[in-house]
């Protein structure tokens, strides 16, 4: 297993108390696997992604472990994590358009970044050229400032930079949200291509767009209010979901596997509970059509079929 996350719990410190954004999440990602991470906005997807590479100042690692290629990641220790960042775990951020220093030539910035990791620019220059070629960027972009690139070019540039040192795990957080539909598809295809060529071993592809995830992910994990709801092979999640929340998500799509535009998750009435003081028991209870007495206790994630986890007492 490339990545093994056990019982991961992460809180945000706020003036009103701890926001329990990630509460005992356990899952694995295999070598060569693309895991699609789905769920409504606020369900904790970005928190999970950030926990695996760099927690922001307000996040606190409360419990649980993360193991990558058999080594435990010191995710709560910002200094110790530096050794793993970029080389082992890398990130394509949501803000690719503004991820590059506006006043530095791109090539120089890459050289500075590599230098931070003790890698000589010369030693990767050739490979960098090949990869730029692969995403159809001219080599001249390295001599340019970010403002001279179009949005799509910046997006591809960031994809190339983030994967240059062949990380074991790549986290792509909502990389397609800002793009139009055809570009979304191209970006997703490029990322799958990176995996196929071995630039990255495994990937967590975060999006609230299940139909896009379905196109590139091998496995889909659905989160709800800081907890895992369901995790299964992509086709199973889309065609035979078992968790009531996943079902509602899928039903809110016009047609499975077909592009949809606006409706997204509008089909589920109600909203997720506050994570400051989440209610005991199943967190979906208030919105669940199947809720019954037993749902007052937190349902554990059960393997209902090989590789198919569901956290619901009705499943």
């Amino acid at each position, binding site marked *: 297993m490339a990545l093994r996350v056990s019982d991961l719990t992460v809180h945000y410190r706020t003036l009103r108390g701890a926001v329990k954004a990630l509460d005992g999440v356990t899952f694995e990602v295999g070598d060569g696997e693309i895991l699609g991470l789905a769920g409504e906005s606020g369900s904790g997807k970005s928190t999970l992604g950030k926990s695996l590479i760099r927690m922001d100042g307000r996040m606190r690692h409360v419990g649980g472990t993360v193991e990558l290629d058999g080594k435990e990641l010191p995710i709560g220790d910002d200094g110790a994590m530096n050794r793993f960042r970029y080389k082992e775990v890398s990130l394509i*951020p949501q803000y690719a358009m503004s991820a590059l220093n506006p006043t530095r030539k791109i090539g120089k910035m890459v050289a500075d970044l590599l230098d931070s990791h003790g890698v000589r620019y010369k030693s990767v220059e050739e490979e960098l050229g090949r990869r730029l070629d692969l995403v159809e960027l001219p080599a001249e972009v390295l001599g340019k400032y970010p403002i001279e690139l179009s949005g799509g070019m910046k997006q591809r540039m960031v994809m190339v930079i983030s994967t240059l040192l062949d990380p074991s795990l790549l986290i792509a957080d909502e990389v397609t949200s800002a793009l139009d539909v055809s570009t979304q598809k191209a970006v997703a295809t490029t990322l799958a291509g990176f995996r196929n060529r071995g630039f990255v071993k495994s990937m967590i592809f975060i999006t609230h767009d299940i139909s896009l995830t379905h196109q590139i992910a091998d496995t889909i994990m659905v989160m709800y209010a800081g907890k895992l709801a369901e995790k299964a092979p992509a086709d199973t999640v889309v065609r035979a979901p078992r968790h009531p929340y996943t079902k509602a998500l899928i039903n809110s799509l016009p047609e499975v596997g077909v592009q949809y535009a606006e409706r997204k998750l509008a089909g589920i009435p109600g909203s997720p509970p506050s994570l400051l003081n989440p209610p005991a028991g199943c967190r979906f209870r208030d919105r669940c059509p199947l809720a019954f007495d037993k749902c007052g206790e937190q349902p554990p994630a059960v393997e209902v079929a090989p590789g198919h986890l569901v956290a619901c007492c009705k499943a």
Partner: protein
Amino acid sequence: MRQYFGRKLLIYALTFFAAVTINWMIPRFMPGDPIQGLVARAQVADPASVDAMNAHYRNLFGLDVPVWEQYMNFWGALLRGDLGLSIWAFPTPVSDLIVRAIPYTLALLIPAILLSWWAGNRFGAFAARRKWLDNTILPVGYILTATPYMWLALLLAWSLAIVAGIFPVSHAYSFSLTPSWSPEFLGSLLAHWVLPFASLFLVMFGGWAIGMRNLIIYELEADYSNYLLALGARGKLVRDYAFRNAVLPQITGLALQLGTIVAGALVTEIVFSYPGIGYLILQAINSQDFFLLQGVFLFIVLGVLIANFIIDAVYTLVDPRTRVRLQGAGA
């Protein structure tokens, strides 16, 4: 790019033209008659003599021709570098007075602006990284910039000059000495320079430091900083990038400050009776010397315009974003 600077030059030329015109108009259409003041100073009682003197001075200052002709003459004289005669220091030409005042203003302001800019930026960037420094010293900076400059200057003059007697209170050098290159005279110059310089340095330093600290914190929270940190870049690299980007707006600020040099530090020069351009302005106002005031203002306008033009040029050099935008616009 060429087009851009061409357009800028045109705008500057128009601004200059308008400023000169307004400058010419104000004293002529304002109440009060400087000539009468000059005549009154002579304390002549005989009405015939008064009339004669009036006529003489009107002719001397070129006020005895139609207004439009005065305006044309004004431009003609201006282009020859002739700013007229001062009434306050009659009959010294205004341009001579300005030329004499410039070295004092420059010697005061250039070191104060440049050093406070440099030190303030360094200190602000440093404070942004240390919580304890940020929490303890920053309030001092705020107090420093919030203090009315007048108070600070008077406080310095009172404590270090009057009470402690370490530095002289006023003027540029001791009147018991004749200006020369002797060590004694230079020492006197330096001693008289310290307090006005220090007062300017202190207020400007606080402003730069706070500005830099806020800019750095903003840059450190920018997306490009977060990206680098997520990819494990060394803290020093991220800070260097942030510093570089934060310095850009400070360069604009510096250039604007340099533009004000020509105006002199009015209050400083008044508090310490330091004979620079600001001191000239005070004298000109006190003695209703419109010609001197006009000359000084023209000089200031010219200085601000030149400084702005230089800023524009420098900015296109240091910030690739401006450069690219200009090239894009030119293409």
